């Protein structure tokens, strides 16, 4: 049974890194920012698919991670999907902010593929 992960990050490098880390176990789709991600989610669900995990960056153009998480929490389809926030070491306060907004957990960039897979397994149903 396929499990689907959405990675939202404005850096193509991060998106590819996430895809590579997870591709053995999960199907990964991507989006460049919060707004793009919401469109992606809508289409994905319209196609009869479901997401099992959302990974999102915080600092992105057009719609940043915090606003995106708040939108996800308002969306019936994905309200309960676990969310991992990508932070950097210098943004420790983002972990709390992310949790407050409704994220499930976080991951510190740059991460090793195994780390990501471990964390993903922790939160994917």
């Amino acid at each position: 049974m396929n499990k689907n992960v959405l990675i939202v990050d404005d850096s193509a490098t991060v998106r590819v890194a996430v895809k590579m880390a997870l591709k053995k176990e999960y199907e990964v789709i991507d989006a460049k920012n919060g707004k793009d991600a919401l469109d992606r989610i809508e289409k994905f669900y319209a196609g009869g698919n479901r997401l099992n995990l959302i990974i999102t960056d915080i600092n992105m153009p057009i719609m940043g991670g915090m606003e995106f998480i708040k939108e996800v929490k308002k969306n019936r389809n994905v309200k309960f999907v676990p969310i991992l926030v990508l932070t950097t070491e210098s943004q420790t306060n983002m972990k709390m902010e992310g949790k407050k907004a409704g994220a499930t957990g976080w991951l510190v960039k740059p991460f090793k593929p195994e780390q990501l897979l471990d964390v993903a397994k922790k939160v994917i149903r």
Partner: protein
Amino acid sequence: MSDIDSEMLEVFLTDAEEQLTILENELLNMEVNPDDEETIKTIFRSMHTLKGSAGFVNLTEVEGFTHKLENLLSDLRDKKLKNSPEIIEILFQSKDVINGMINAISTKGEPPDQAKINEVEKMIHDITKTVSPGEDQVEMDEEPSDEDSNKSFFRIELKFRTDVYETGTDPILLIEDLSRQCNVISTTMKIKSVPLLPSLKPFENQLSWKIIVESPKGRKPIDDVFMFAAIDNDISIEMIEEDELEVVEESRIGELLIREGYLDEAEIEEVMDKHMKIGEELVKEGKVTKKIVDTVAEKQEQIRKIQRTNTLRIDTEKLDRIIESIGEVVVVKSRIREIMERKGWMDLEEEATLTELDRYINNLQKDVMDTRMVPIKDTLLPFRRLVRDVAKKQEKEIELEILGESTELDKTITEKIKDPLKHMLRNSVDHGIESPEEREKAGKDPKGKIILEASHQNGEVLIQISDDGKGIDKEAVTKKAIERGLLEEGKVLTQEEANKMIFRAGFSTAEKITDISGRGVGMDVVKDNINSIQGEIDIRSIPGEGSTFTIHIPLTLAIIEGILISVANNRMIIPIQSVVKFLPIETEKIHRVNEEQTIEFQNAYIPVIDLSRQLGFNDGTKEMLIIVQSGKSNIALIIDEVIGKYQIVIKSLEENFKKVKYCAGATVLGDGSVALILDAKSLIRNYEH
């Protein structure tokens, strides 16, 4: 380097290039509005993204450098530091350093000089030091103490928020994870707060747990399991002594029943297993029928089939080949139609099938064309830096405004207009915009303005470069033209003629070779370049107020629509965008002035040209007039017959033959014969000269 690494690196390079372009544009914006918060935020974000991406490909040099910059930028963002031209200069230089580091990786260039890096780093350091001395080190997570790292027992109490599911946390998942990390001795679930079914809210959690575990590696693995949940849920992890265990164990009913000898383990497991299967349980409880559970399970399977809509990078050469093939298919299709028509009749089924084929081919063609369309943005944005640099060197103040950057056109065309546009902008800065003193004297804003605007119009792309400079000085142009031997002594050019003169070969108003325009490319080269992509260039200039250059270029070059005509038994194609109108020849309407013939068209007299004579053919039947247009000029061509509208793929003649006058190339028609494509533009140009 492994495949994954090199693939990642490639992605990183594209990514970095994108971020650097953003960075540069925003820095240019910052120069105009140093305190604009959005600009600072965008720059910060772009630096942050760059840093993050560099970390993934192990480019510690780039990562370290961008990290230092990030500090500077966050100080700016948090207003701990006031922006200044000095800081902007540091940022520009830093951008160049990063650019150098990245180019060195992609082997596009020499790595930046270490001394230069150190110098810029020092500047960054000195500036940031004034705000937050010693804030270089990053905050680290507190490492949990290692006091209980040995095998020990823990009592874990889990009280989750009622809306825990909305945070994506699943208590069961955590408990399962815990059971993998430790040896679970007992689990007690409190269900007291669970309401009766009618008032039960399925999306809310009312459960809490008490779990006793034995952890072989101490507290750390347990902390890890709950690292996310512990932040906003009431989770307590407490080390207990071995002798506290028994009491707890006895509270577990199953264990108690076994110990008391009422049941054995197998019997308990059997019951537990049943509880796991929710579907069966529900059927048994009479909540749903088995059939429903089965159909839902089936649906669940189907839902998992996912749709892939990822993007893919394709070599444009491959696309070109596809387009060429589609072009061939178009030709063969026309050929089939011709063969069938030659038969004299077509039945309904044949006609319908061909029409259907037409439709699919059109869609296919449109879809492939779409893939080649790219926004003009990437071509236009780098010009901001160019204008800035050229202006700075000449001590002029110039603002470049770019409009319509999302206008899409064929990728190959964007590549071809880059150079002409670059030269035109340089010319505008060099010759169009005056020095601040001159401008002030003329009562203008000392800061000049150039607007670069792209738009779509009538199936073409329109690019305009307007400046508010001194415009084309017809006296100066007249003088120069006489000097260059392009004009007879004593003649005076009108404004219109002066405007056209600057495009003539051999005319260049460049007084001296500046270090920016280098060899000083003349506008004639620009015009040739634009003509070579079926484009047109026009100029409008008002002395003292400025000039506007307008370029019309086709959306694509791959497939064009044309009108097939016949001239003295030769068949030729005229590209449809050149064709204005067909008229039957009415000799009385054609006027003869000296040796030339003219006809009135749209309130103007336009020249009439006998195409067969012009091309050196024999005389034909001469029954039709076709009016063609190039830029603002129209001419009427005498031809024999208009055959119809065709879609054609242009084949260049020059690959195999030498250039034929007035021909833009050739194409293969439906019947397999070859037709030349008439280059109306060169005909008109020739006539005007």
